[in-house]
């Protein structure tokens, strides 16, 4: 059996090993290009210090961005959607069972009557 055979998806092909080889080759090319560049960075000088418009650097623990601050904009943009979808997850078992029974009834109508 050919281990490296590509997957034929009916529309295109996917050959991970070839992709990986190309990826590695591209990385090597990038690395070589990067090597040819000229380094102006000098360790231990003023260059290494963070530049914060003259302010003092804050403490390490304070600069960590906590999880709920991420994607604030995304959640704000989709506020209408989330206001509709989150209250459905009420946490009340009765509501969950009503959803279940209602879906069963709906499927009964769709399959039993319409088809």
């Amino acid at each position, binding site marked *: 059996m050919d281990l490296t055979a590509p997957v034929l998806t009916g529309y295109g092909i996917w050959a991970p090993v070839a992709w990986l080889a190309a990826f590695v080759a591209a990385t090597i090319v990038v690395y070589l290009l990067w090597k040819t560049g000229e380094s102006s960075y000098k360790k231990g000088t003023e260059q290494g210090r963070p530049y914060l418009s003259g302010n003092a650097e804050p403490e390490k623990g304070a600069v960590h961005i906590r999880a709920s601050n991420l994607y604030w904009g995304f959640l704000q943009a989709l506020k209408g959607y989330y206001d509709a979808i989150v209250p459905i997850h*009420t*946490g*009340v*078992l*009765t509501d969950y*069972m009503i959803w279940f029974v209602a879906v069963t009834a709906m499927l009964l109508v769709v399959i039993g009557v319409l088809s």
Partner: protein
Amino acid sequence: MLWNLPFITVVVLTFIGIVTVLMKKNIIKILLGINILESAVNLFLVSLGYREGGVAPIFTLAPSELMVLPTPQALTLTSIVIGVATSALVLSFAMVLKKKYGTVDINEIRRLQG
């Protein structure tokens, strides 16, 4: 048609069971509703196996050759024992929830949401 009474009873019991499960807020009442539903299914299975004029499928006592079908009875036995296992587990959950949350009201057992 009219003598399909056991089946009609099954439907009515299912209705009452589902109403009890969906309308009541007390976990123990919900469990009673589930018990009614389970009994309805059991009755459904046993009625499916009934033959007009049949006798119980036991050769020691049976006077005639016509017997009711034995398979639904075996299935129902299994179903009954599963039912009591379910009840035991749900009631233990209710007892622990009463101890931890101070209530068995479904509307107030909703710390996991969102």
